[in-house]
């Protein structure tokens, strides 16, 4: 598994959601709605002789400022398990990420907030488990 390829391909999967800006770095200022692909946490040696590794990746979905009532409505669409704006469906639409991994699964999404440029945004943290 090549981390840079995995992150780039995760970003490409997220970009299939119309209107969602995608980043593979924490931006100084964010255009919402936006998704930031985080770094990989790696557990080496899932199989013998450097076969496959396990990894988890956090994706930060930033929807809108905390003061915007429309933020939660947008989140509902992204949080759905299916549909054209579903983050889980978009990522799992190609579980090999174009051959970058053996398989993956979006395991959970946790509510929270994130501060970017002194502004609090409504956000969700998605965890993705990868094997490759």
């Amino acid at each position, binding site marked *: 598994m090549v981390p840079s390829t995995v992150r780039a391909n995760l970003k490409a999967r997220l970009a299939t959601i119309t209107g969602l800006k995608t980043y593979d770095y924490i931006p100084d200022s964010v255009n919402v709605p936006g998704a930031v692909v985080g770094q990989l946490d790696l557990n080496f040696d*899932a199989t*013998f*002789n450097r076969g496959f590794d396990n990894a988890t990746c956090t994706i930060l979905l930033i929807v809108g400022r905390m003061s915007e009532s429309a933020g939660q409505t947008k989140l509902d669409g992204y949080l759905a398990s299916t549909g054209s704006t579903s983050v889980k469906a978009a990522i799992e639409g190609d579980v090999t990420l174009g051959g970058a991994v*053996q398989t993956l*699964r979006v395991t959970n999404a946790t509510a929270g907030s994130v501060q970017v440029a002194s502004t609090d945004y409504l956000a969700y943290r998605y965890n993705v488990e990868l*094997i490759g």
Partner: protein
Amino acid sequence: MAIFMGNKVAVIVGTTTITTFVSSVSLSREVDAVEITAMTDSLNNFIGGIERPTVTLEVFNDFAASSVNSLFEDALGSKLAIKLIPVSGTVTATNPSYSMSVLVSQWQPINGSIDSPASASISLPVTALTKATS
């Protein structure tokens, strides 16, 4: 040779190397303890009987042609050649190979759960075993 990590075991089934699909392997060599305790003995007494080795594998399944599933499922009920090398690479006196014939007495083509990749955990009786150092 010194202490070594057990994460580079080579697993070859027939002529196909499946090492990168294997997450755990063990070859257990066990000999029957045949009791020969006599009336005059004050302790139990035994002699070694027949060896009953077993090989245990945990593998990630793959239905691709000639991959893990077909190797084992097609051999179900018959014998299969398996070779294990402690550290993948050249076989030497300090890195011996174990070549064996196993009866494929079980296989798990379907073994999944929602939070883990499909895998199989099997224990197979060994019917012939050869240790080689070259």
